[in-house]
């Protein structure tokens, strides 16, 4: 049953060193506040899973929280590289990161398999691609009826999935809408689920077939307004494209990155603190 608590309590109680962690959100509703809190609490040895690592994992990787990453597209969307991810993979800073690369279709199917209690997924994919040569978890089977060759991938079964949603009610039922990505599947594939939300409301005013996570599949609901920033929350605020651009310069350089993490995350109390300091540094930059 969903516990309505602070993000600090949720991360401290539910995410442990060594956990397999999925933080999902496909451009939309990326749970950045939760990512910050994991850095703030100095979690270590996390096995990260995410289709598009984005800034959220660039930060976690650069801050030394992760030992491995399963992903399918590792760029800063519309900008370029994820420099902290590349530095970890290529130069082992702050330490070596083991990567396992898949395609989007594979990852989406792997989450579906996880949510469905299956150990693997079958997809029509990878034929002619070199990815199976560098990732031996991608295999092929023959259809028992037609003999066709199809790809398989192991299910994603995170210890914990973290997502951001627009609303929860006071019991902890969660509602999201707009671009849904793989969040429902990621949540249902996991043993535990943390959801940060824009708003806690008396009653979810949801259409019949809306995307809802009932309270009994959610471990903790945390009220964190603007918790997806610099990503966006449909109906609440837009994507901070300027910050995605600015991140390129911050992350390109180890010192700049370390200073940014120190000032914005380690030296702030919580996401509200982050937003305050972030506003200050934005002002400094434009001054």
């Amino acid at each position: 049953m969903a516990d309505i608590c602070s993000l600090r309590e949720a991360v401290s109680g539910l995410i442990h060193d060594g956990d397999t962690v999925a933080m999902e959100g496909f451009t939309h509703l990326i749970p950045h506040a939760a990512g910050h809190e994991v850095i703030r609490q100095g979690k270590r040895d996390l096995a990260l899973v995410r289709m598009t690592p984005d800034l959220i994992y660039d930060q976690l990787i650069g801050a030394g929280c992760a030992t491995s990453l399963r992903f399918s597209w590792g760029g800063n969307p519309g900008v370029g590289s994820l420099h902290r991810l590349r530095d970890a993979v290529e130069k082992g800073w702050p330490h070596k990161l083991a990567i396992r690369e898949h395609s989007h279709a594979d990852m989406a199917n792997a989450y579906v398999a996880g949510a469905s209690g299956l150990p693997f997924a079958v997809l029509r994919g990878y034929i002619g691609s070199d990815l199976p040569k560098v990732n031996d978890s991608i295999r092929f089977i023959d259809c028992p009826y037609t003999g066709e060759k199809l790809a398989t991938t192991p299910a994603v079964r995170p210890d914990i999935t973290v997502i951001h949603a627009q609303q929860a009610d006071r019991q902890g039922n969660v509602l999201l809408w707009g671009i849904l990505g793989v969040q429902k599947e990621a949540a249902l594939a996991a043993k535990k689920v943390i959801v940060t939300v824009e708003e806690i409301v008396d009653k979810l005013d949801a259409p019949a077939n809306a995307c809802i996570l009932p309270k009994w599949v959610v471990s903790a609901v945390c009220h964190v307004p603007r918790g997806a920033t610099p990503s966006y929350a449909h109906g609440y605020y837009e994507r901070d494209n300027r910050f995605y651009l600015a991140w390129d310069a911050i992350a390109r350089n180890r010192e700049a990155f370390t200073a940014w993490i120190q000032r914005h995350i380690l030296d702030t109390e919580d996401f509200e603190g982050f937003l305050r300091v972030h506003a200050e540094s934005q002002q400094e930059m434009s001054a």
Partner: protein
Amino acid sequence: MSIYTTNEMMTVAAARRLPDGAVCFVGIGLPSTAANLARLTSAPNVVLIYESGPIGAKPTVLPLSIGDGELAETADTVVSTPEIFRYWLQGGRVDVGFLGAAQIDRFANLNTTVIGPYDAPKTRLPGAGGAPEIAGSAKEVFIIMRQSKRAFDDKLDFVTSVGHMDGGEARQRAGLPGKGPQVVVTDLCVMEPDPVTRELTVVSIHPGISREQITEATGWPIKFAANVVETPMPQVAELETLRALQARTDAAHGKQEGSES
């Protein structure tokens, strides 16, 4: 209005290829620009699908990310990402997969993973994204990318997404459902796979570009079709529409480079 950039020529030439009413799975960046230009000019009924979930998106400005809110707001429906890949792409509902890439070989195999050895890359690229299965399952694949010796390389360090494999009927023998790349549009020319060998062959050269420039910008001895034509210049209406789209986009997002997802 005969002054236009090579990027504009490329985008216009690519947009013209999209049949009206086609269901088009769109990558972010150049493919998205060309597909939206087509929607605003020659193919008003094109159906744009983005891997984040929107089906039938009709954005007024170009999306900066693959999951921009406007894609959802203007779509006929928004489904989950697993559904996009399972029911719509793998289900055989996509007519045209529109891709970009960092590198392409003579049989239109694509690399978006690494330049150099996989374990010690010279350049690490973002990776596969949706491309391997778009390249496999879309009924046809269109490719748009700027041409250079580095990008048009006959010895890819990594094949991320399948084209015509090693040519001929290889793709069909491998059991791939889609027909594979049918056109590659660059800033210099338009190429199509030879009907028999499937080797990319120049079929149309953009105005003012020479065969030498194309040969120079290709990492293998590029072939020219028997009847190479000149690509029709961008028309005033096409350029105006494209420039207005870019201006609206810049006003909404701030000017920045595009990148594929």
